[in-house]
């Protein structure tokens, strides 16, 4: 059976102007318990790659530049 991809609005948003992943930062990617953040090849910035979030907040709390904002996932908002 072929696979289709499925649209979801992700809860975690990164302010690309503030993110310094292009200078080597990977803090949010490192700490996330669900391992759902990645650094984009295209933009060189962090982003939520998988919508599998426990809305727990280490990514936001530990980001050195305050670039991460955790929102409540839409389904339970």
């Amino acid at each position, binding site marked *: 059976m072929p696979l289709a991809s499925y649209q979801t609005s992700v809860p975690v948003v990164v302010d690309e102007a503030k993110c310094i992943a292009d200078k080597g930062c990977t803090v949010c990617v490192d700490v996330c318990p669900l391992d759902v953040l*990645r650094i984009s090849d295209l933009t060189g910035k962090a982003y939520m790659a998988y919508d599998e979030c426990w809305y727990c*907040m*280490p990514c936001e709390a530990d980001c050195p530049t305050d670039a991460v904002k955790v929102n409540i996932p839409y389904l339970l908002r």
Partner: protein
Amino acid sequence: MAMDEILDGMSEVSCDVLVIGGGTAGPMAALKAKLKNPKANVVLLEKANVKRSGAISMGMDGLNNAVIPGYATPEQYTKEITIANDGIVDQKAVYKYAENCYSIIEELDSFGIRFLKNENGDYAVKKVHHIGTYVLPMPNGETVKKALYRQLRRARILISNRYMATRLLTGADGRIAGAISVNTRTAEFLVIKAKAVILCTGAAGRLGLPTSGYMFGTYENAANSGDGYAMAYHAGAALANLECFQINPLIKDYNGPACAYVAGPYGAFTANNEGARFIECDYWSGQMMLEFFNELQSGKGPVFLKLNHLHEDTISEIETTLHKVERPTRGLFHEGRGTDYRQQPIEMHISEIGFCSGHSASGVFVDEFARTTIPGLYAAGDMASVPHNYMLGAFTNGAVAGEHAMEFADNTDFAAFDAADVARERDRVMAPTKRDDGIPPNQVEYKTRRLVNDYLQPPKVTRKFEIGQRRLAEVRDDMENRMVARNSHELLRALETHSILDCADMAAHASLYRTESRWGLYHLRTDYPEKNDDDWFCHTLLSKKDGRMSSEKRAVEPYIVPIADDEKDLYDKQRVRTSA
């Protein structure tokens, strides 16, 4: 992208003591093992990152079960936990925890974690349980993980982050030999030979499906997919009382604790839609959950946490605590819905089911030394069978496990395992990556968990369980033969799906075995509605025998703290009486 590419790799390391899971119990176990023998090698393996993993990822509000001299005695605590669990308790392990936990509090204090004190410098313990007083707030509870991490670094514990353990290895003599793990970002294998292994992988928190439909919107840290239960089962260890599910009263949809333990001592309470109190005590027990469930069904639901009768200053204080640590997105959730504690009560609901001894009583069977039924294999925290253990129990029993495991390791050599076991595991793990087409892990997981809700959630009905088992077997066939993972992150989820399905099968099997009702809502069987002490005043142990799931009875060990007849049913009297 490169990070989640599937690589073909396999390496092998060895250590004296291997700790699997670096949340709460795990760091303490690793630390105590290392301090016991500083020359030995201790490896702490973690699926996520020890800095921020586990239930206490963002810290904790307080200790739920502190036995502090002057406020409570180990005897009182043991009695309370025995009664709260309908008597099905091996008291030795509970008593040992109660005796040891105060020294762990002092040790945590020396790590820089503070506990609330009153003007006289005494611990300010609060009453939440039915009988005794055990709840101790932590004013800098958000620093717990950092404090632990500092100790791990100082003791030079070897930490391996982003490795998910998938199976335990045992020797021909049945002793533990190590574990197999997979890197969650490269799919490379790491085989760890160990003389002793301590499982600290937390609850089975992704068993039921939250009512929001969001698979990761669980009460437990969603990384805790029940891997420890599955690994212990496949290694041949016994698991105790799995029919005693974990079900919690939570904030609806948000699925975090409403924190009656925090707000209760200030005068907040659980209320029905008339604003009236209907339970005597907010402490989470099966009996309390049954009254909660009954209220929801009665037409007097929904159920709320009511604070709006409190003084503004009190509400602000509660708000600060509840919105800062533990689940700090809580404030955001309320804001989104326009809920202000001053105006509206907080709507609550019943959580999805799970396994968790931290809050209820089921888990990998352990004795008072945290030993499982496999020599050299230990377990501590939410996945081990010591009931109502919470965070302090994870720390305390983690410490017990660490010390005892190192003693075991010091007196033994590596057990030899069969290389064919590793090869077989590699085939099992990699199977979803060898397919080009099939069913993705998220769909297999969703269906499994949806079936758990439809068929296994209490009230438990035999016929429904039997249908559930058949449907779960169909999903298993899909999982084993048709599941596809296209990168190593999907493979992580695929492996978790195996654990979830194993736990679902165990939940069904254990529930059908115990033909009575016990522990309030946790094991409410409509076709056996009564408690039957004559036949079922015992533990049940589930294990793998000749490749099949099997259950047996195990006698409750003679009490060391006697319970008088008129005390036995104190937890059965949860409902507020309407007339005097």
